[in-house]
């Protein structure tokens, strides 16, 4: 059974996208959502908070989603935190790089609520 009251961190430098993901999460009953507008802000929040899931964009400046993922996996306290990448980067080398960095799942934009729900359940089901 997935605990939908867990705190979820969504990371995107585009505030409209943050708003869309927050609303879609709300539709699938994840209401405890925190936002970060780039990788640096995200890592600071992750180190001080207690998040059960990270959903991040890749294409951000100055710290990209891939670099954030690498930092998370290198942090002894955060390394097992489920991490889903939601991105428009859909090349094979991107998926491989993300997988090698330890991504839990990968959603390509544009996506729908059903895909988001399915990937979250798959990722959290493995925790």
């Amino acid at each position: 059974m997935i605990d939908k009251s867990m705190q979820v961190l969504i990371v995107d430098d585009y505030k409209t996208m943050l708003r869309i993901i927050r609303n879609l999460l709300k539709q699938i009953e994840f209401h405890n959502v925190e936002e970060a507008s780039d990788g640096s802000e995200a890592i600071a929040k992750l180190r001080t908070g207690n998040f059960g899931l990270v959903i991040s964009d890749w294409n951000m400046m100055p710290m990209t989603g891939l670099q954030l993922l690498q930092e998370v996996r290198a942090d002894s306290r955060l390394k097992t935190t489920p991490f889903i990448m939601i991105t428009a980067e859909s090349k094979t080398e991107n998926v491989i790089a993300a997988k090698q960095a330890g991504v839990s799942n990968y959603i390509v934009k544009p996506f729908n609520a059903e895909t988001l729900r399915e990937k979250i359940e798959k990722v959290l089901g493995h925790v």
Partner: protein
Amino acid sequence: MSDPRPLAERLAAVHARHPGATDAITEALREVMETVVGKVSATEAALLGEVEALGRTIAAAKAEISALHVDDITASHIPFATDELDAIVAHTASATEAILEACESLDGATGQVGPEPAATLLNATTRIYEACSFQDITGQRITKVVGALKEIESKVAAITVRFGCQWHLHPDWHTDGPPVPADETLLNGPQHPTVAMGQSDIDKLLASFD
């Protein structure tokens, strides 16, 4: 029609007709002939002719490029195009925010109606939220177009500099740009739908690691 005989033979004929008057001319022409024949072969002369023609072509091209006012590309055309693209992003972002706000109001109203209309409302707003992510994709595509425009600008600048035309980069354009992330080569933005991997392709690729 030119005389087909060698010049030396022709000079000898002139000398035979006018032995007193042509000595000086003959001597001068002989010196010229020795200079030309000794230093420039027929092939070299042909090459020189081609080089001269090429020079005229380049000069004509330079004149034509100057007449095109290529400075306009950086001074007005490309800045205008990028400003227009920025305006498109701003307008669509504003419209998307308004749509999202309206959707959030509808979501808030689901508690005031029965379960069936609430589910219908929820289903409709979910589809609207999903559709609104177009804004992010179009923004990234427009960024790629702006990058292509900058590339065109720099290539045109390189050509015109090579041709010796006047060229000044627009003051608002900087070659340094923002800091480049370590995984820059992986930042390609949205792929064209005809070649992009879909979610199912990505799922299969990820599953191949398990």
